[in-house]
């Protein structure tokens, strides 16, 4: 192949790739997206956020940094807002911060991180480090990670909120652990957000946590909506049901995500991915049209149980 031919093919290929990658964004822009209110303020946020556990922990690798920047850019292009991380996630906060400095489409960012230590002094340091890494003067949400040192850290977070350095306070857990402790904290009315695991397989939160969050007016972030990718392994090559299109799903990622975000008390689900194409699939689940109803959610659950 001659140089000019190769160059022409490269340019055409790049244009085609750009067109393909921008298509979902264009198609989404014509459809309304699902936004949910934060009960404490009635501010609304996009119902699909982005987790960064494992996927954004890439160290100082410049090639991978560029890839993750593209993922985050796609997220914002397709209506994403909430980005969740933690000092516990290795280099994730640094990588998110580097990506944010390179992006120009991140105005909608809803920044969510955590404190993860039992020491109040160290928690303060962690918060300052997070601010520097993300390059944020004020965080939208800071959560107590896995309830570590919860009493001390909630006191610190209230202080930071009074100083206008954070907007909302939350607590997190995952893998179905510490639910009774979360319930106690929720009932004390100290937090505006709670984060726990909720997906089509691990749906025990429906029994107590989700109704309680609804009653008390606490926003819910659902982590592990794909159960860390495990759900895709469980369904193997099973086809989607014929009626999947009626609930707005064209692939399993959307099936799982729409099951989670269609719960009336879930504010936001935070799937994690390191790939642009997966981010596009995830964000397409945001379309408001054909959001599953309560009876359709039951059907989705039944079908999932049948195929695993």
């Amino acid at each position, binding site marked *: 192949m001659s140089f000019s031919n190769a160059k022409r093919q490269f340019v055409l290929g790049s244009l085609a790739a750009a067109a393909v990658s921008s298509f979902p964004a264009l198609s989404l822009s014509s459809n309304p997206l699902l936004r949910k209110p934060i009960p404490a303020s009635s501010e609304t946020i996009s119902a699909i956020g982005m987790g960064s556990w*494992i*996927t954004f*922990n*890439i*160290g*100082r*690798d410049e090639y*991978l940094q560029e890839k993750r920047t593209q993922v985050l850019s796609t997220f914002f292009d397709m209506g994403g807002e909430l980005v969740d991380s933690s000092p*516990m*996630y*290795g*280099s994730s906060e640094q990588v998110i911060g580097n990506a944010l400095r390179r992006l120009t489409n991140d105005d909608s960012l809803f920044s969510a991180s955590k404190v993860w230590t039992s020491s109040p002094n160290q928690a303060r340091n962690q918060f300052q480090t997070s601010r520097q890494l993300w390059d944020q003067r004020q965080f939208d949400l800071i959560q107590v990670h896995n309830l570590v040192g919860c009493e001390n850290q909630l006191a610190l977070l209230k202080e930071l909120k009074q100083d206008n350095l954070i907007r909302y306070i939350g607590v997190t857990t995952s*893998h*179905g*652990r510490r639910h009774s402790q979360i319930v106690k904290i929720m009932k004390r009315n100290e937090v505006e957000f709670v984060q726990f*695991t909720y997906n089509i*397989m*691990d749906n*025990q939160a429906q029994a107590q946590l989700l109704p309680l969050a609804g009653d008390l007016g606490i926003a819910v972030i659902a982590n592990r909506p794909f*159960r*860390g990718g*495990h759900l895709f392994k469980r369904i193997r090559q099973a086809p989607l049901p014929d009626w999947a299109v009626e609930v707005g799903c064209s692939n399993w990622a959307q099936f799982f995500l729409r099951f989670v975000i269609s719960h009336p008390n879930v504010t936001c689900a935070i799937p994690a991915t*390191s790939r642009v194409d997966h981010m596009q699939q995830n964000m397409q689940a945001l379309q408001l049209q054909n959001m599953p109803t309560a009876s359709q959610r039951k059907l989705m659950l039944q079908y999932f149980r049948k195929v695993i």
Partner: protein
Amino acid sequence: MSNYELENFLLFSADVYKRLVFTFNNDNIAISIAATGLLAFVTLSTRPATAIKLCFAILAASWAWLGWRFYIIEFASINWFATYMGVLCLLQIPMFIALSIKNIELGYKIEQSLLYITLSYLILVRPIILYLVYGSFTFPGLAVSPIPTVLFAIGILFSIRQQYRWLFLLIPISLMILESITLYLVQDEMWTEGIVITALMMMLATYGRYNICRLKDKTSFLPLVLTQRK
């Protein structure tokens, strides 16, 4: 509800870990070649007692590089626990320096041979295994990659007769186990290597010592294993 599984404690993806190790090995190949060449040279060109002391000195330098550069600088960027593994590596520096300057009693012939067997494995056999497993040529990675360095450290410690030898073996074996767990979690096909080779070395050393004991006095075998004395 799902509960924690071992893989839930992995902070990074297999791809990112493998890329980090591959890049580090590539960037430090000159150091690895130098360390391997030096170890091979002193082992083949000097008497066993001198060779072993020089090998301990080279290993001390290798652990310094591996602990600081690989664990604390590179691996810790995706895994905070690597800092502790780096400290474990650095703790071995005074230990190996001490062994390189003090008078060392060599083990039985079969124990001494473990030094040569391990080095031969790392230089001649391991690259072939890696080629068969990964489909590409990989340099032994001594002083740059944890498993070959740890295997050489264990091999050389088995080749001497030293009081409280098990104490000296504690850190290399701990590192070997932690590395094997990491490799298992990132689904690396070579995750059993450290365990298998260490087990073979232990079996060989024990078998050799047992045979020697049998020739002398059967009853002295157990105390010999425990104390490492004649």
